[in-house]
């Protein structure tokens, strides 16, 4: 059992198989593209209500305002995505 092996702590080989979560997350199938990508270290900056992004009058390059869809006739979807219901 890993617990007793780890607590004895006398044999380095015994604990080599133990992994911290970060090492596991780097290898999970289907998430490889994320492992090689900087997960944006700047995201760890603590926000405050003063620096929440507000809708800007002048649209930045990455922002594309979607045209009003009320003028379009949408097809009937097979299902809908929305806040979890």
């Amino acid at each position, binding site marked *: 059992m890993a617990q007793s092996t780890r607590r004895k702590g006398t044999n380095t080989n015994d604990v080599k198989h133990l992994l911290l*979560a970060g090492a596991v997350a780097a290898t999970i199938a289907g998430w490889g593209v994320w492992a090689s990508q900087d997960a944006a270290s700047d995201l760890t900056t603590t926000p405050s209500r003063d620096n929440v992004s507000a809708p800007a009058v002048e649209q930045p390059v990455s922002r594309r305002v979607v045209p009003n869809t009320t003028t379009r006739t949408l097809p009937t979807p097979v299902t809908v995505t929305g806040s979890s219901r």
Partner: protein
Amino acid sequence: MQRLEFRAMGSQIVVLLDVEATPEAAVLLDAVPGWFAEWEQCLSRFRPASELAHLNRKAGQWVPVSPVLWDVLQHALAAARASAGLVTPALLDALEMAGYDRSFEYLLPAGASAPHPATIGSRRNPDDDWQAIELDPRTHSIRVPADMPLDLGGIAKGWAAQQALQRLAVHGPVLVNVGGDIAVSGPWRDGTRWPIGVMDPLAPEQQLDVLMVATGGVATSGREYRRWQLNGVWQHHILDPRTRQPAATDVLSATIIAPSACEAEMAAKVTLILGSGAGLDWLEERTALAGLLVLEDGTVVSSHRLPDYRWKG
């Protein structure tokens, strides 16, 4: 097209299978609710007898876990890594202190004052906590730090959608929708992409748009539906791990298209937490993602890759 709907995991489940109506298809779809019941019994934080609840009670100790819990936790950790900790399984204590301490169906929108402190938690680096979880791949055992109970939340729903998809896709093109977390296996037999509506958070009976998706995942994070009052202050269920409080954001809802439902779920939460400016920048840097955001003032904005998916009538 064969269709199945039922409730599980606190959500409406929709399964669509593009096959002929045969007895074999009926038997196949009849099995699906049982899969979800099994997964919910393992993964729910609201069920005292669940495997996740058992793991949380044994915090600080090594606990052997089932293949299901092992797999879902690995996806949750991958999401934490990909989001620099913004989407983390290590926020359960903060969620409960914010008042989300029972299944959402039992939370009153204007609930009575709860005996929780107004200050939910201290500011911290979100990329630290989840990395303290230890795993033993040899025995499939997990050790959760004593002060860090886990909540698998939205990642569990994305995982369930993907898992059901894998089991059904061998029979034909399939879509699985778990409360808005959608997995799609491939286009219909005639090559048509799946038309998926995007709910308007300001008018839930209406759709903002229809996305045409052939394969991968679609998910929406929103702060309008799962919300409640705590000591007279509105709370919502998308917590910012940096403050351990409901995210202060100008985004009402974020809908993301990604290679899988779990990735879409993670990216939708990140975009909502970051707000429209930083959130869209984060999306644009990741070429596998496209997103549609609804802001507090009703403005609808999108990433530059979204038009690839919008229905063009």
